[in-house]
């Protein structure tokens, strides 16, 4: 190799962009030629100066916040008509009526409702862009271990992509009874939150299906876990999804794994 060849490929050599055979020739030349060794050292010095003084930067918090806000704005329907003020008053009056009505609901039912409220709020909040995923991965073997040390139980995570419900990831969330795992699956345009916690932790009571504000919520108790599934997906498909989960759960519970 001539010095001219060496010089021409020096950048690519240091950038690790040369084929192995050429790397060998370059290294040989470097050992043999003092002038080229000096060029090489100059290059390294320049790169060290760049690495040291031209670092990667962090986005300012304001930038991150404005992007998140833009995401939230995408989720909120743009068509929120501004009501004239008298209509606000009317709406407030209706609200007072609703609140007064709710007041009379029996306490056990109120407790179950508080739970479904909390779960629905968690699901909706996650869609508002603030906190959809703590761990984003379609790999169950990435998502499941992520919860280690964050919860006192290890939630079951399944790969249902083959059935049309890809895993998107998971997040840690708080509902009435403490920290819980929320697993997030997708179905076309829809997001499904799966909440689960050990059944003995309670509360386990609750209606099997709830529909509120266009969201469906399904609830069941597997032998070990209380499950809640929340989504805006159609109830037929959501039911199919829960059946897949239940089947995967009972398959996992069998000792032979089948």
């Amino acid at each position, binding site marked *: 190799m001539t010095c001219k060849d060496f010089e021409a490929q020096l950048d690519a050599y240091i950038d690790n962009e040369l084929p192995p055979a050429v790397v060998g020739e370059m290294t040989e030349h470097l050992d043999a030629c003092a002038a080229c060794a000096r060029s090489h050292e100059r290059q390294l010095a320049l790169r060290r100066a760049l690495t040291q003084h*031209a670092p990667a930067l962090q986005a300012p918090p304001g930038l991150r916040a404005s992007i998140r806000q833009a995401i939230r704005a995408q989720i909120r329907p743009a068509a929120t008509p501004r009501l004239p003020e008298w209509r606000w008053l009317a709406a407030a009056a209706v609200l007072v009526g609703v609140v007064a009505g709710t007041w009379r609901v029996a306490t056990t039912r109120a407790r179950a409702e508080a739970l479904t409220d909390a779960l629905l709020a968690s699901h909706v909040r996650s869609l508002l862009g603030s906190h959809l995923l703590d761990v984003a991965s379609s790999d169950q073997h990435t998502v499941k271990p992520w919860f280690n040390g964050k919860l006192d139980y290890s939630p079951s995570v399944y790969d249902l992509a083959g059935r049309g419900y890809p895993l998107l990831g998971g997040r840690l969330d708080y509902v009435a009874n403490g920290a819980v795992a929320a697993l997030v699956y997708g179905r076309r345009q829809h*997001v499904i939150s799966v909440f689960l916690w050990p059944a003995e932790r309670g509360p386990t009571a609750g209606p099997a299906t709830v529909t509120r504000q266009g969201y469906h919520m399904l609830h069941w108790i597997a032998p070990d876990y209380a499950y809640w599934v929340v989504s805006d997906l159609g109830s037929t498909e959501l039911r199919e999804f829960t059946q897949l989960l239940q089947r995967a759960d009972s398959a996992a519970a069998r000792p032979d794994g089948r």
Partner: protein
Amino acid sequence: MAPSELARFEALVLPHLDAAYTLARYLMDNDDDAHDVAQEALLRALKYFDGFRGDDARAWVLAIVRNACHTWQRTGRSHPVAVEFNEELHSGAVGDEHPEAALLRAADREAVRGAVAALPLEFREVIILREVQGLSYKEIGEIAEIPVGTVMSRLSRARRRLARALSSVARERS
């Protein structure tokens, strides 16, 4: 956009916000322009995310940032700022054997940033993508829309300019 697409955007694109800002900051002349152009680019990314089907979200978003920076610079929306050089230079050990390497070692932060900022945009972007963000020639070529051979020659010329600028600054000071 559907919630699942937004979730995908959050999962795939938002992790590269720092990289996006870094590129914008080095390609623009000041913090405010960098903030604005990065924001504009990310919003554009959000808008067109439906059409993104590739597997390299970082390269995709960096290409959008890079194009936004070029547009800003071309349309003169940015405010040109005089490049400042720090009067002080660290007096590193200057060996006799490799004077230029020693001069480069002595380069301080202001000198390095000044020299980078003084590079023409097409040289600056390949340097930042390579040296600061550690991308491969192939990725850089995709982002800057140039063949790999051009990436290599631009990098090489950019580094020669940087080395010259830094040694001459150091020589002036010593």
